[in-house]
């Protein structure tokens, strides 16, 4: 297959399929989760549950000192990775154009070198996190195939995107094609892996926070 055919294929039908699997999958997974319901709590509340829910969604972005001291790598690399990924995904002009194309909304973009730097940091952080996962007993013990698969699936779009921007190794068509393909793999994997935490994290924090709010626990 020539690079152009490949690019057309991944950019065309494959991308639509991937996005559709992603959307269907995410909606399905959320339905799966929400359908299980939550019993009404009859205890007299000491605080406001939903306020607690919202507060906890925000509060969990912060890590307490003690936990930070014990999880420096996880926290710092985790933050660098997530912030970097966010910048790359949502503040690169090309990605904004894609979002505008498919959803019709757009916002200002960042200068490309900033995004480039974010991508590099994000990848470095991912490498650090992988090394940490392999060397730290708890993480290694907890890790399933899914965790490594998701690591690869997250790393590849960053790497191929970086290579596409810098024209490394292959023709830009190949690289852009591989980049899009890697994103498609990520999209397809998303609903059926721990990548779902991107969405369910807010649910989880809210549920936990609501329970804390009910009990008047302010963290």
């Amino acid at each position, binding site marked *: 297959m020539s690079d152009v055919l490949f690019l057309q294929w991944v950019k065309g039908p494959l991308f639509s399929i991937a996005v559709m699997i992603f959307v269907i999958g995410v909606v*399905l*997974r959320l339905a*799966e*989760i*929400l*359908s*299980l*319901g*939550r*019993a009404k*709590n*009859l*205890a*007299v509340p*000491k*605080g406001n549950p939903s306020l607690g829910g919202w507060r*906890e*969604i925000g509060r*969990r972005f912060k*890590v*307490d000192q*003690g*936990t930070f001291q*014990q*999880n420096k790598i*996880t*926290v710092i690399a*985790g933050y660098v990775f997530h912030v970097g990924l966010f910048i790359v995904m949502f503040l690169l002009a090309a990605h904004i154009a894609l979002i505008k194309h498919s959803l019709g909304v757009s916002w200002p973009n960042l200068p490309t070198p900033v995004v480039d730097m974010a991508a590099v940091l994000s990848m470095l952080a991912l490498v650090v996190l992988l090394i940490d*996962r392999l060397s*730290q*007993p*708890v*993480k*290694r*013990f*907890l*890790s*399933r195939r899914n*965790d490594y698969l998701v690591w690869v699936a997250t790393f590849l779009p960053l790497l191929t995107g970086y290579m596409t921007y810098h024209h490394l190794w292959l023709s830009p068509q190949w690289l852009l094609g591989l980049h899009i393909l890697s994103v498609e793999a990520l999209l397809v994997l998303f609903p*059926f892996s*721990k990548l*779902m*935490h991107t969405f*369910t*994290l807010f*649910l*989880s*924090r*809210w*549920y*936990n*926070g609501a*329970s*804390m709010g*009910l*009990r*008047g*626990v*302010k*963290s």
Partner: protein
Amino acid sequence: MSELSLERGINTLKAQIDAPIASFFSSCVSCGMCASACSFYTENPEPRYTPIYKLEPMRRVWEQNFTLLGKLKVKLGIAKPVTDEMLSQWQELVYNTCSLCGRCSLICPVGNDITYMIRKLREGMVASGHVPEGLVGASTRAVKIGSPMGIKLPALQAQVKHIEKATNMQVPFDLEGAEYLLMLSSMEIMNYPEYLEAVGKILTNAGKTWTLSSECFEATNSGIQIGSSDIAKELVSRVVNAAEKLKVKTVISPECGHAYTALRWEGPNLIGRPYSFAAKHIVEVLDELREQGLLPTEGMEDAKLTFHDPCQLVRRGGVVQQPRNLLKLVASNFVEMTDHGTLNWCCGAGGGVSANEDANEVKMKAFQRKKKQLDELKVDTLVTACANCRIQLEEGLEENQMDLPVVGLTELIAEHLVERNTINEESRHD
């Protein structure tokens, strides 16, 4: 009635799994940070003690029953089933090395309430019969005798007599229409009778009507600890019935963390309706009295003193500021531990661990975390507000040859209480 079985266990778990749990499992990224939040792990750094790992059986039940991919895996025969062997292995993780302290639930970056899940997993462990003997014993005694430690009413009456003799104070039983129904824990009756004396003194001094119930004096709830709603419901119903019979306004939960959780948070859900009375922890009541100016104190403790937050009070109960308000009344040299309040470390004995002989060794290891906190501070006195914690702390300190007195908060306040007749006398002197 059929016997407990794996099938019943799994069925129970299926009934327990709700949207929050599904969301929590979906959110876990295996970051391992919950391990660092758990003193059972930090003091026994074995990876399997990582809180989220303790939930593996439940995770499998969820995945295989409530997710598309999991169902597919089952169909394809590649899903790892939950077996009896697995559950017996997990008994140690679910009971011995978890005090339901909730610290991991606070730390988890994605917001998973691991404690909530462990509590629910225990329901399945119970239904499948994978429970520690000690907890079964405690539950049996609680159901059959009325208290997990096997204390019956006469024992309490004997203690009451003691107190009445020593203090000149009347301890009312079954006083209908009293404002407060005071509940106790067996530990207080057996180990810390001064608690009852202190509460009595304070309430009487504040001019409040209060009473004990001869039908039900025990507030601890082994059903909560073992993780059986059926048993817990029976036990909590006794309190509700007694309170409603006496038509009290408020039921006071004793200085015992899980008793508070059982009464305050789980009770209404277990009986399936809201209470007709309020349920409060003694510390909350004391702080209310302080606010109302009904808690006059005199003198200050000069000793350097710190406060151990009982987990169920702070993280699972929202009672953080009240004990500090109270300590301010009586202590001039109060210092906080590095991680305090909602972040406080568990003593290592909550959530049924103290009642579980299998956990004796591991719970003392977990105490090392508390020891480290105390070592940093070098205090003269350790105050707490939970009898269960107090026992563990005392045992732990002793085992570690630390000469540090542990004091109940209520007693400490009572010691500094300015008694009303004294006030009257003094005013008369004026």
